[in-house]
């Protein structure tokens, strides 16, 4: 049965249901219950965004583990535990904190299986918040999934809504490879129909969010809804957009994108990350290489600028790609004449 759930609730439910099903799933992170060693209530926060609230009540301290501020230690511990019989889900509070623990992710978790000749299994999930729009400034607002996507051995999930979130997170926990699960902080309060029962969404299968024949828009995470808004505006102008949400950047469902571009001949990629070496470039380049003959206009990239994320609301609103910018790029692609 489907009910409306926010993205926040979808994460919580996916964790709860999978923890019920599989006793080897544990959670680790800073203040994910909250109140550890403090005089007041336990489960005082449920993480800084309240995502994991209530889980310690059901699963106890043995499985919902608050940690000191020691990301290398606890992310590394999650990785080590994953090679030793658990399926840990660690919370890196903001992906911006990767800089103090990246080694455990990209040199350890990502490479074990290959370095050890196929003999390791590291089923760890790292959940992390990303994205601009919260007025959280340069060190709490980055996307950074391109950095993780670059690394062989990692899988990267960038859900755009509550329904996908639940299915992808359930898949992530059951997956036997290390998964980085990016939660856009501006999506937490957005609700969608979400079935009560468990389900999984396979990685590497894009979702065609809207069908259309004139221009293919590929968008990630929060940008998917912006792309849909743009598509609706454009529909009124007689431009029929296909909107594709890859859902995972690694693996990437390039086939669905290629198939679409072969039909539309036009591509706009929308990526909230900084412009250099990002997913917009990744997708645009692969499409240009593999569907060149089908392209009737230059592939267009709509991204954040090459600047840190500014604090001031007036600047941050300019920083994030907007439905208007997406629409402009689509119009230009559509209007292109060789």
């Amino acid at each position, binding site marked *: 049965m489907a009910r409306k759930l926010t993205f926040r609730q979808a994460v919580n439910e996916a964790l709860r249901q999978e923890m019920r099903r599989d006793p080897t799933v544990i959670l680790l992170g*800073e*203040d994910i219950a*909250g*109140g*550890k*060693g*403090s*005089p*007041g*209530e*336990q489960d*005082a*926060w449920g993480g*800084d965004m309240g995502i994991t609230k209530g889980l310690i009540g059901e699963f106890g301290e043995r499985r919902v583990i*608050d940690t*000191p*501020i*020691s*990301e*290398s*230690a606890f992310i590394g511990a999650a990785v080590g535990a994953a090679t030793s019989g658990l399926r840990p889900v660690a919370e890196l509070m903001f992906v*911006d*904190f990767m*800089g*103090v623990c990246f080694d455990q992710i990209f040199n350890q978790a990502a490479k074990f299986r290959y370095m050890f000749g196929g003999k390791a299994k590291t089923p760890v999930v790292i959940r992390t918040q990303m994205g601009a729009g*919260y*007025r*959280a*400034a*340069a*060190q*709490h607002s980055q996307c950074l999934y391109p950095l993780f996507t670059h690394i062989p051995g990692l899988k990267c999930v960038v859900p755009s809504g509550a329904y996908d979130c639940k299915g992808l997170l359930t898949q992530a926990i059951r997956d036997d490879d290390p998964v980085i699960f990016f939660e856009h902080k501006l999506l937490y309060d957005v609700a969608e129909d979400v079935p009560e029962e468990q389900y999984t969404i396979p990685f590497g299968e894009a979702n065609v969010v809207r069908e259309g024949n004139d221009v293919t828009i590929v968008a990630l995470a929060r940008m998917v809804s912006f792309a849909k808004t743009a598509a609706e505006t454009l529909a009124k102008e007689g431009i029929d957009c296909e909107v594709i949400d890859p859902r995972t950047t690694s693996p990437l469902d390039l086939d669905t994108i290629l198939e679409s571009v072969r039909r539309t001949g036009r591509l706009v990629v929308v990526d909230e990350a900084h412009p250099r070496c990002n997913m917009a470039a990744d997708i645009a380049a692969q499409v240009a290489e593999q569907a060149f003959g089908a392209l009737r206009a230059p592939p267009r990239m709509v991204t954040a*600028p*090459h*600047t*840190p994320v*500014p*604090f*001031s*609301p*007036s*600047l941050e609103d*300019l*920083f994030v790609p907007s439905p208007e910018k997406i629409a402009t790029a689509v119009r230009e692609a559509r209007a292109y004449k060789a």
Partner: protein
Amino acid sequence: MQINRTELLEAYRKMRTIRVFEERVHEEFATGQMPGFVHLYAGEEASAVGVCLNLSDDDKICSTHRGHGHCIAKGCDVPGMMLELYGRRDGLCGGKGGSMHIADLSKGMMGANAIVGGGPPLACGAALAAKTLGTGKVAVTFTGDGGSNQGTTFESMNFASVLKLPVVFVFENNGYAETTGSSWSVACGDIVNRAPAFAMPGVMVDGHDFFAVHEAASEAIARARAGEGPTLIEVKVDRYFGHHEGDSEKYRAPGEVAKLRAEKDCLKRFRKRVTEAGLLQAGELDAIDRDVGALIDRSVKAALAAPMPTAADLMTDVYISY
């Protein structure tokens, strides 16, 4: 350690400025007009001011996400800070940094830091520069109890000790890292117990007592200036507000803050001590209170009326040349 009248007045003015600034930001935030994550320093004033009174503009400090107090103690422009918190174009950082990145290098304030454990390595660098250039200057890094558990902090202490850098590690232990109790997260109980592991002197001081902080800092800074290397100071303090504005504070004991405010307020203690000892007159302090109140008032009004940065500002300040 002698503190003269001018210094005492200055200390009181700064502690008072921090307190009123933070109380006011608390109110302003509640109106919904102040953006971002805001972490208030109220209750911990004696730490920042007790330490920074020993420093000149050329000495450096590195701060944390809870940085307003350190800014004010180090002499940053208060109206400029308020503009910054509101994201205004003429803010201390042009509105680009906000509360968590507020900085003024010209005052030796190397920045609040939204990465817990971000400051200690940077302070080692400032100290290294002082040592290499032979300026006799020092660096101080403020870190919380939570930040004391970060690897970057630990290795900076060993590094500073090995290189005998003129740096002071001040740990402001306010009992909590977000919701997490420091008596739990710091395995050895008191942070000061870690000093021997880094072959540096360690002192614990009562952060409600401005004079105790000032004295400990003064000794540590003198050691650093004399080329004798780093010192660890643990300052026991309390925070009067939530971790950040909006925090429900359920992890605290009922009535905890009210009790702290009543019994351990560093400003009240300072006032009592200096007036009872006849060092300053109550009237002088009252005048400062009025001044400060007016300053903060003015700052908020100015900030609310000030212009936001515009599109032209988005792409500037990324590089010096590119």
